[in-house]
């Protein structure tokens, strides 16, 4: 085994690319859960975003349109969930699981004739001088625009939740929908918007996967990334800043195990491929041991169906 083949700078750069789809999806789900809705369909929305973004990018030749279309399609499928749970009072867990399965199936169908095609190139930015600096240049100034976008989005969501009235109303709806309703806030409308935002973020994450990270379309290519995003929301205790830590931790373990495989570590690759998921489970268990803090941060109405009695 040759560990010297693993370069720390390359590791960090590819870690950020590996984490971005999960970070995007987790940020969307964070907003959804803050509004009191548990949407387990992240995986389904992600893969729909992946396939639709891929198709749009290949057809138009523009990765930007691909991202846009991926986000729109993610939001569109999330509306199935939204109408079922918010207007028809369907159970959120069952509907979310259904959405995941629906999304996986629909994506295979849509993507059938797109396997093996290369999408248009989405290149990294290059700032003269800055990007050429050793180490720092590649880690800070050498990414593609979507990575910067995901970081900016994290900050924007933090600012929205903690500093704006809209964010306060969103948190209030997730905290107690009955109280919010009594004060005259439109609980269902706010939740519909939150779900749509979550769908768009998941779709964007999926499109990043098929356009940048892989970059190809393959059936079932999200490979559980949506579920990891859900876990990261809990790990982050519903705080955007911590979602970055969670996503990068997962991305880091993923990239590291790939590098270890390449370096020829004498462990079966099957075990190495497990490590990111195992790490997620272990971290979640550790986080969950502090019940009191957890329940303080969790939106109190999470997953409960709102029914206006008046």
């Amino acid at each position, binding site marked *: 085994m040759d560990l010297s083949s693993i370069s720390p700078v390359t590791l960090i750069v590819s870690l950020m690319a590996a984490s971005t789809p999960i970070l995007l999806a987790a940020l969307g789900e964070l907003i959804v859960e803050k509004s009191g809705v548990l949407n387990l369909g992240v995986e389904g929305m992600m893969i729909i975003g992946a396939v639709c973004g891929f198709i749009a990018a290949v057809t138009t030749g523009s990765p930007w349109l691909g991202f846009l279309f991926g986000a729109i399609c993610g939001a569109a499928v999330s509306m199935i969930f939204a109408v079922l749970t918010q207007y028809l009072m369907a159970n959120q867990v069952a509907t979310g699981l259904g959405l995941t399965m629906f999304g996986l199936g629909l994506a295979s169908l849509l993507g059938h004739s797109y396997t093996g095609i290369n999408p248009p190139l989405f290149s990294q930015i290059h700032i003269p001088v800055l990007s050429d600096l050793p180490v720092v240049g590649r880690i800070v100034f050498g990414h593609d625009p979507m990575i910067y976008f995901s970081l900016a989005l994290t900050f924007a969501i933090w600012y929205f939740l903690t500093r704006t*009235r809209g964010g*306060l*109303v969103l*948190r*209030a709806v997730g*905290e*107690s929908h*009955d*109280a*919010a309703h*009594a*004060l*005259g*806030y439109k609980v269902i409308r706010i939740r519909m918007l939150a779900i749509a935002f979550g769908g768009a973020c998941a779709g964007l994450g999926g499109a990043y996967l098929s356009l940048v990270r892989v970059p190809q379309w393959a059936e079932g290519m999200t490979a559980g990334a949506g579920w990891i995003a859900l876990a990261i929301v809990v790990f982050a205790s519903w705080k955007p800043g911590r979602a970055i830590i969670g996503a990068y931790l997962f991305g880091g373990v993923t990239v590291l195990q790939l590098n270890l495989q390449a370096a020829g570590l004498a462990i079966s690759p099957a075990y190495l491929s497990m490590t990111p998921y195992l790490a997620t489970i272990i971290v979640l268990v550790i986080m969950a041991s502090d*019940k*009191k803090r957890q*329940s*303080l941060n969790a939106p*109190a109405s999470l997953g409960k169906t709102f029914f206006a009695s*008046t």
Partner: protein
Amino acid sequence: MTPLLHLSGLTKAYPGVVANDNVGFEIAPGEVHALLGENGAGKSTLVKMIYGLVRPDSGEMRLHGQAFAPHEPRAARAAGVAMVFQHFSLFEALSVAENIALGMDDAPETDALSDEIRTVSKKYGLTLDPDRMVGDLSAGERQRVEIVRCLLQNPKLLVMDEPTSVLTPQEVDVLFETLRRLRDEGTSILYISHKLEEIRTICDNATILRLGKVVGTCVPAEETPRTMAEMMVGTELKSPTKRPYQPGPVLLDVKNLQLPSKDPFGTSLRDVTFSLHAGEVLGVAGVAGNGQDELLLALSGEELTQNAAITLKGAAIGNKGPNHRRLQGLLAAPEERLGHAAAPDMSLTENALLTGHARQRLTNKGFVKWQATQNFARAIIEKFDVRTPGASHAAKSLSGGNLQKFVIGREIMQRPDVLVVNQPTWGVDASAAAFIREALLELAEQGAGVLVISQDLDELMEISDTFAVLSEGRLSRVRSASGVTIEEIGLLMGGTEVDHAAA
């Protein structure tokens, strides 16, 4: 002079029930007007129409002589109508300032708002720290949050729905002081309560509702609580007769009971010590959130403690679960009817099975004896006058009072040696409450020990033989209920001079 608010012919029907039928009355500027009625009389619906949460089917409302038809709370607030809710309108995980900002339509920046909150709360004598989490506040403080939220908008009409149900007598005095000051400044108040003594103290006029209709008006100061109650109910009330109390042998002995609360906003029990005798009704008073729920959980067996902390008829049961305790004769009825005492979507028969199967032998080697269970449920329904079409109906289809009669009846029918009840008559109309109290007294008379946890002091004074106060998870010394005044209890409830149970 034009009345501030004029209502006429208001009607609102829901499927199967007319909540308000041709209701009309007037409120003058600076008047404190009481709205009286039993549960289900239509008070809440009426108030929701005034606040824009519900739209009337027909009828007219006029504010300052002009047509007033708010289609949402925002419109009502803009017109000068503010409302203090009974519950459901605060967010525990948000700060006081955030809670207040949510109730305002044009909330200023956080810092400016915090200053305003301090100014208003000082002006009306309602101490409040804008930065604290609402979940950490006492019930009285929470209500101040609601009131300050209303006052910041300079309302012309303040609607208060059961404002004192969670307050200590001293807190009630502070509240009334605030209300009088508001009234003197010309604010009208619509005051909803079923505490008749308070209505006599604070209200100028009263409108009485029964089954959605106005059945009378009165000047509360010229009436007695009894005459007003009879107007509400429509029949004469009988009050339970107190029997002489002679303590029998100790049935339940609790020593240094400790129980850390699992709820982040709950209260841990600390060193709770008392004994309950045969034939005794022990009343435990206290403001909500001082450990009442935890005490019930520890006694019912839902939360286990050190084994020696609780002894029933000489046997330690602290680490035994509910069914073991039931078999030994300790039964309990928690406060929350739907979801804790009864499973909302299950039938009354199934609910009867849930707590009754061990003691009533309703199962045989794990198989349910449905016939016997149904008979048991029917017996409860009959004996406790539960108004329902039948035992096969879901628990949630019953009104609060009827379900409470069923829940209490289910335990009493099992002939417990010790019965623990939490808030047995909370949100229950006057006649059902009287019935339940009577049943509890009868149980004690037959030699059982009854522990009643309640926030309703009048209730405790009426039925208790002995008396203690739970404050911040500690139980005061148990004293005889005769000769205790409401003022003394109030001080204990506020946590002042709590003398810990002597060893």
